[in-house]
């Protein structure tokens, strides 16, 4: 008779920077079922937005997640601009792309560093985070803060980037690209790294689609799904093709993220080359009325904002569906059949952001 054991994983665990609990039902070393428990740090931010003016909510949604804070604010502002029929200046659309892609780079570098750390590759972790620091330094120099930068406002951006600053950004991202080129072979060819990632946690394209998987997780399973393809902000004027891999394992998910850093660098270079001169914000008049849905591709995948205005300064409802919230059910289907030793890497490859999930 098979004997089942239940092993609690988290909420505190060395690979988890934030609290997530999984009840793992085991048969020997093999997982047969996984049940999640969340809610350790739920903050009720959606409710809080109902008590603040719609212009103040930009600062609340930025705090949904530190790592993709810019894109939360961008999604909110895009939705409000849609709702209030505000046409933002072309320059602001390009500025948003530059800052958004810088955020994607630092998010992916953070994740790759954590992954390297999880399988004990300390020097790789440090090399990756050294490059992330360069991105955070750009944030600090351009807007004054390193992580939550508050660059978005409804109607455009709060600040502009000077010509000299754009040249400087271009030089720094070239340096990052050089470093990534040097580090790429470690992820793609190193024996130890491949041993931990290849063939682990396979998710087929059909499974990913059925489970509503988003972001690099879905793209690593062969699904060409990237909200940037809809052309929001200035993406419609930039030349890019989403990164797609087909193996659907932890290795494919890593490859997608490494390649997406290079894609972000190319997008920033294009945006810098094409950015038009002019204003970077327009004044906002009136209050929002009606409903709108805004969608943006964050580093972890698609984020959905639903907003309902009632003609006053206060929103009737703001709803946020973050990418990790969408990817947790996938994790539950991916874990059964895996070995206990692979659980930390498997959880990491969904790039879980509990802060987002517990908004």
């Amino acid at each position, binding site marked *: 008779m098979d004997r089942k054991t239940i092993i609690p994983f988290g909420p505190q665990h060395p690979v988890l920077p934030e609290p997530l609990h999984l009840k793992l039902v085991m048969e020997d070393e093999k997982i047969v079922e996984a049940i999640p428990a969340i809610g350790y740090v739920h903050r009720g931010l959606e409710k809080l937005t109902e008590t603040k003016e719609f212009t103040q909510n930009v600062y609340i949604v930025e705090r949904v997640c530190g790592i993709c804070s810019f894109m939360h604010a961008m999604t909110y502002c895009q939705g409000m601009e849609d709702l209030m029929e505000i046409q933002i200046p072309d320059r602001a659309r390009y500025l948003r792309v530059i800052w958004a892609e810088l955020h994607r780079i630092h998010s992916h570098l953070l994740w790759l560093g954590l992954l390297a750390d999880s399988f004990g590759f300390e020097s790789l972790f440090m090399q990756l985070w050294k490059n992330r620091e360069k991105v955070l330094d750009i944030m600090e120099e351009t807007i004054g803060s390193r992580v939550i930068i508050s660059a978005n406002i409804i109607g455009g951006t709060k600040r502009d980037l000077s010509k000299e600053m754009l040249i400087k950004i271009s030089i720094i991202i070239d340096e990052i690209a050089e470093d990534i080129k040097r580090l790429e072979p470690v992820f793609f060819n190193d024996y130890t790294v491949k041993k931990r990632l290849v063939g682990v946690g396979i998710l087929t394209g059909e499974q990913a689609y059925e489970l*509503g998987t988003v972001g690099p997780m879905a793209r690593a399973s062969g699904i060409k799904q990237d909200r940037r393809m809809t052309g929001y902000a200035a993406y419609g004027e930039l030349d890019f093709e989403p990164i797609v891999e087909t193996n659907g394992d932890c290795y494919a998910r890593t490859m997608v993220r490494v390649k997406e850093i290079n894609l972000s660098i190319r997008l920033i270079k294009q945006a810098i080359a094409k950015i038009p001169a002019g204003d970077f914000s327009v004044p906002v008049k009136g209050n929002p009325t009606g409903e709108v849905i805004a969608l943006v591709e964050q580093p972890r995948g698609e984020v959905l904002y*639903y907003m309902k205005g009632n003609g006053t300064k206060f929103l009737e409802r703001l*709803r946020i*569906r973050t990418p990790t919230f969408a990817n947790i*059910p996938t994790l539950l289907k991916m874990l059964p059949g895996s070995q206990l030793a692979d659980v930390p890497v498997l959880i990491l490859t969904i790039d879980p952001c509990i802060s987002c999930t517990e908004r």
Partner: protein
Amino acid sequence: MIKNLTEISKDMLLNETGKMKYNGYRFVTATCVDIGDGTVDVIYHFDKDLELKNFRINVKRGEEIKSITKIYFCALLVENEIKELFGLNITDIAIDYGGRMLLSDEELQNPMLKRQITIEQKGEE
């Protein structure tokens, strides 16, 4: 203002969700909005080729809604969240946390529902 939004009755929900699955749509999420007159709107969002399709049902608080997790397993977290934060009676969820996914016993019941708040000024009777 929302594109591709269809109003349906709650009895049609499973049928329409089944059709979405059959037609190759991905389940994105569900959004719950307290209307304030004792009813709640639930909007179900589906996606195919980056085009959203939305269905809205309007239900009375406490009225039973069947879970769609038998069709889309991935709806389990959002359905538990709605059940807990808005107090909707969603039944047959694949993993039902019984209203304790996010909240503990000490916390306010259904905190996302609209409530009448009276602010008392100091010194006023």
